[in-house]
C-alpha cells in the first residue's frame, strides 16, 4: 500500500470525513446483520466490495458477477476496496459533509477538491442522492446512496464507474469509452461517441458468437506496447428500448432498471452468453462504427487521427479527465494498431461478418 503523505488542512478535513463515512458503513452493516462481500479480480487486481445490505448488491453486483476471483499468484498490486451503504434500508444517514453543497440546483456535481486534498476524489449526484469518495492513497472508496431502488439504469450497467476510473489512473489502467469484441484472444476496440453504433455492433458480435469485453467502457492497459489490452469491467450491454425490437433474442432477456434519461434496457451478457464474456482481449485494431443508412456494410481504412478523434473526446469529456495522461495513452494506442471505419448498413446480419473480416485481415497482415 502506498505511504500516506503528511496531511494539510483540507486533506485532513476530507480524511476525517472519509473515516466518518466508513463508520457509518459499519453501523449500516451491523443494522443489516453484517456486511455482504463480493470478491473478484479486475485486470489482474483484487476487487473487494462490501455492502451494508442486499439492496445495493442487487444494483451493483449483476454487471460485475462475471468477474471471477483470480489465484493470488496471478494478482498484482494492492486490492481496490469499495464500501457501500444505503440509508433507506439501514436507517443510517449520510454524515453531514464538511462543505457547503453548491447551491446550483444541478443534478450532478463533479466536485474538484483543492490541490491540497488531491489525495481524494469526490463525485456526488444530487438527483439520485448518491455520493462517492475515493482515497487514492489507500485505494478505498465509500459509496453511499439514499435509496438503492432509485438508482437508474446506468448505475446497474456500469457500477462504480467513477471509482474504476480514479483507481485505474494510479494503476496504469485507462478507463476508455469504447466497446470491445473479438475472437481467439484478439479484440476490436469499437470507438465513437454515443449513438455511433458501438453497443449495436458489439451486441451483434456477441450474438454471433464472438468474445465480448464491453459495449461501452473498458480498461486499457499497455497501449504503447505490442500487446495493448482491453480489460473487461462490466458484462452489461445496453440498448434503447425503441431499438430492442431489432434484437428479439436480447429483448427477451433484457431487464429494466429504473428508467433514466437514456431510456435503455440492460442485458447481462454473462447470464446468457457465459462462455463469451472474456476478462481481456489483446487489441488488434480500432474500429470506428458509424450509422450510414446504407444497404450494406463497408470497411474502409481510417487514419490514426480519425481514431483519436473518435476515441479521445468522448472518453475524456465523459469521464472528466483533468490531465493528459489518458489522452497520451489513447494516442499511443491509435499509433500502434490499425484503424478502420465501419459503415453500418441496414442488414445487421452483415455486421459480425465485417468484424470477422477485419480480424482475418489482421491475421493475414501479421503473417506477411
Amino acid at each position, binding site marked *: 500500500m502506498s505511504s500516506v503523505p503528511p496531511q494539510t488542512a483540507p486533506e485532513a*478535513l476530507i480524511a476525517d470525513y472519509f473515516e466518518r463515512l466508513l463508520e457509518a458503513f459499519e453501523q449500516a452493516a451491523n443494522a443489516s446483520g453484517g456486511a455482504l462481500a463480493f470478491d473478484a479480480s479486475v485486470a489482474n487486481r483484487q476487487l473487494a466490495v462490501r455492502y451494508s445490505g442486499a439492496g445495493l448488491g442487487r444494483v451493483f453486483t449483476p454487471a460485475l458477477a462475471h468477474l471471477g476471483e483470480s489465484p493470488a499468484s496471478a494478482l498484482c498490486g494492492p486490492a481496490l476496496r469499495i464500501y457501500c451503504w444505503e440509508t433507506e434500508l439501514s436507517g443510517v444517514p449520510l454524515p453531514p459533509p464538511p462543505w*457547503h453543497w*453548491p447551491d446550483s440546483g444541478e443534478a450532478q456535481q*463533479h466536485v*474538484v477538491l483543492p490541490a491540497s486534498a488531491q489525495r481524494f476524489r469526490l463525485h456526488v449526484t444530487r438527483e439520485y442522492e448518491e455520493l462517492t469518495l475515493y482515497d487514492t492513497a489507500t485505494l478505498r472508496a465509500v459509496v453511499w446512496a439514499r435509496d438503492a431502488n432509485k438508482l437508474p439504469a446506468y448505475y446497474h450497467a456500469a457500477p462504480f464507474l467513477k471509482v474504476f476510473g480514479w483507481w485505474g489512473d494510479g494503476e496504469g489502467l485507462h478507463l476508455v469509452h469504447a466497446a470491445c469484441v473479438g475472437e481467439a484472444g484478439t479484440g476490436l476496440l469499437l470507438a465513437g461517441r454515443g449513438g455511433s453504433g458501438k453497443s449495436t455492433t458489439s451486441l451483434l458480435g456477441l450474438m454471433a458468437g464472438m468474445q465480448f469485453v464491453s459495449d461501452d467502457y473498458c480498461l486499457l492497459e499497455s497501449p504503447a506496447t505490442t500487446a495493448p489490452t482491453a480489460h473487461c469491467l462490466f458484462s452489461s450491454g445496453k440498448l434503447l428500448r425503441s431499438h430492442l425490437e431489432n434484437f428479439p433474442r436480447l429483448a427477451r432477456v433484457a431487464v429494466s432498471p429504473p428508467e433514466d434519461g437514456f431510456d435503455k434496457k440492460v442485458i447481462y451478457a454473462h447470464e446468457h452468453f457465459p462462455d463469451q464474456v472474456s476478462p481481456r482481449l489483446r487489441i488488434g485494431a480500432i474500429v470506428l462504427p458509424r450509422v450510414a443508412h446504407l444497404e450494406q456494410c463497408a470497411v474502409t481504412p481510417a*487514419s*490514426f487521427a480519425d481514431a483519436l478523434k473518435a476515441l479521445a473526446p468522448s472518453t475524456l*469529456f*465523459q469521464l472528466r479527465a483533468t490531465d493528459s495522461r489518458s489522452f497520451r495513452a489513447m*494516442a499511443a494506442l491509435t499509433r500502434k494498431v490499425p484503424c478502420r471505419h465501419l459503415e453500418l448498413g441496414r442488414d445487421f446480419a452483415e455486421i459480425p461478418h465485417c468484424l470477422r473480416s477485419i480480424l482475418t485481415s489482421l491475421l493475414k497482415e501479421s503473417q506477411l
Partner: protein
Amino acid sequence: MTRFELNAPDATFEDCDGEIIVINLASGNYYSIRGSICHYWSELIAGRSTVEIINHVAATFSLSEDDVRPTVGKIVQQLLEEKILRPATAETPTGDITISGTAGKYEAPSLERYDDMQDLLLLDPVHEVDVTGWPHRPESEAKNS
C-alpha cells in the same frame, strides 16, 4: 505580444503527422489544425515569436511575408480565443527554427472546431475550488466546534 505557449493543463494536443489534434479539457471542445503551420507547432507553443515563424514560413515556401502574415496571424488569434494558446511566460527560444516533418508544398493553416461533446460537460458540471479554499465547514458547525 507575439510569443505564446500551450494553455496547459486545460489544453493538450497530439501531433498526428500533418494534423494537430487539440483537446480543451475545460471547455469540452476539440480541434483539428491542418496546413503547413503544423510543421511549426512545437516552435509556436515553445514561445517562438510569430514574427520569426512568419519569416521562416515565407523563406521555406518561397512566399512573401505579406502573403503568410494574415493567415498565420489569424489562426494564432483563433487559438488564443479558444484558449489553446496563452501569452508565453517562458524565455524566448534561441537558435534556429526546426520544423517537424517534410515541408512540401505550402498549405494555408486551418482550424476546425468540434463542439459536439459539450453536452457531456453540461451533464456533469465541475465545481472548482474558489480563492478562499474549499471545502468550508458549514458556519453553524464551525461555531459549535
